[in-house]
């Protein structure tokens, strides 16, 4: 069996749930996170001479996921800016979206920029040190610290508001 195939099969079999969760936190959308994981896996193993080594495959796929998410968000926001008249609201809500709508953390993360969001996920979900986050995003350590600081400030305000709202709702 080809080496890349064995690595990919082992990674997908054992870590696909973890990868999906990572993507879910980034996107905040169940179906987009499904696509994101698959695309990252395919990109990681598509280049014949650049397939990752077994030990480094998961980190490599996660890094690709983060960069794909940031790029996709940039493309989408450009499109949304250029073609506002073509936007149509979704007709049928995905059941998974109801979960998203109820989750305070995801709601709070929606207020962050894609890079801030990636920093939060990599730092507080993946437990990566700042230097590694900077390497994944291709920015300076100081920039990551700034993103994290801004993101934490924003999330604290939003989570606090959401927690107060749910406490008042429960008290009624």
């Amino acid at each position, binding site marked *: 069996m080809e080496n890349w195939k064995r690595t990919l099969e082992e990674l997908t079999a054992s870590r696909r749930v973890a990868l999906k*969760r990572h993507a*879910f936190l980034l996107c905040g959308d*169940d179906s987009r996170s*499904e696509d994101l994981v*698959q695309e990252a896996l395919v990109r990681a*193993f598509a280049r014949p001479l650049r397939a990752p080594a077994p030990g480094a495959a998961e980190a490599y796929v996660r890094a690709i996921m983060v960069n794909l998410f940031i790029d996709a968000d940039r493309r989408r926001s450009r499109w949304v800016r250029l073609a506002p008249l073509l936007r149509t609201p979704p007709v049928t809500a995905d059941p998974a979206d109801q979960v998203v709508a109820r989750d305070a953390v995801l709601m709070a993360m929606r207020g962050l920029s894609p890079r801030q969001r990636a920093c939060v996920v990599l730092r507080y979900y993946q437990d990566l040190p700042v230097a590694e986050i900077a390497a994944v995003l291709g920015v300076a350590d100081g920039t990551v610290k700034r993103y994290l600081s801004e993101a934490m400030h924003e999330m*604290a305000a939003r989570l606090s508001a959401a927690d107060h709202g749910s406490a008042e709702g429960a008290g009624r």
Partner: protein
Amino acid sequence: MTIDEHGLRRRLEETAAKASAPRFTTEDVVRQVRRRRTRFIAMAVGAVVAAGAVAVAVPVALSGKSQPMVSHAPPVPPELTYAVTVNGRTEMFPAGSSTAPRFAVTPGENLTIVVDAYVPADTTMSAVWLGITDGVLSPRPDGPANMNPILAARSGAPLGPGVHRFTLRWAVPASLRPGTSRQLAAEWAWSRSSPSRSPGESEAFIAELGIQAAPGA
């Protein structure tokens, strides 16, 4: 307003766990990778073929008239071995070596340089120039362009295989600053000496003359 990092980690874990189970299978991903790889290889092959086609088509188009494609390899210089003696100290500079021997000299010193050049078998040189350069090699069919002074020149009779001795004299200019250097260079020209060797000329540094401060200076 601050946020408890430990609490945030826990909440992120809880939120991540709300993601539904992945719907894709390993086979799906392997199939997609195979398809992408096939496309990537096809593109790479296409790019190589296109580059090859351009490499052939452009010279043909620019040549103006149809000509048979004949490749002309640059002339291969014969490899010579040198023994260089500067004021009685001899250093060998074998063929194929990349670093010329270094001699320390002082400003104003009168040098006697003996160069024994070993011309290999099956090789005949049509001309030779020996002299001092300032780091620039510029061989030309009618002699070197950046050799100053030229200390020896021989172009009358061909030099066949064997040892050829040249005795040179050079006074190191008093104006040269310690820490700088000059090079003893040799330029050779050869006519066609074998079916595989076209005529040409080449130049090489055969000794490095490092300028040092005179004792007591």
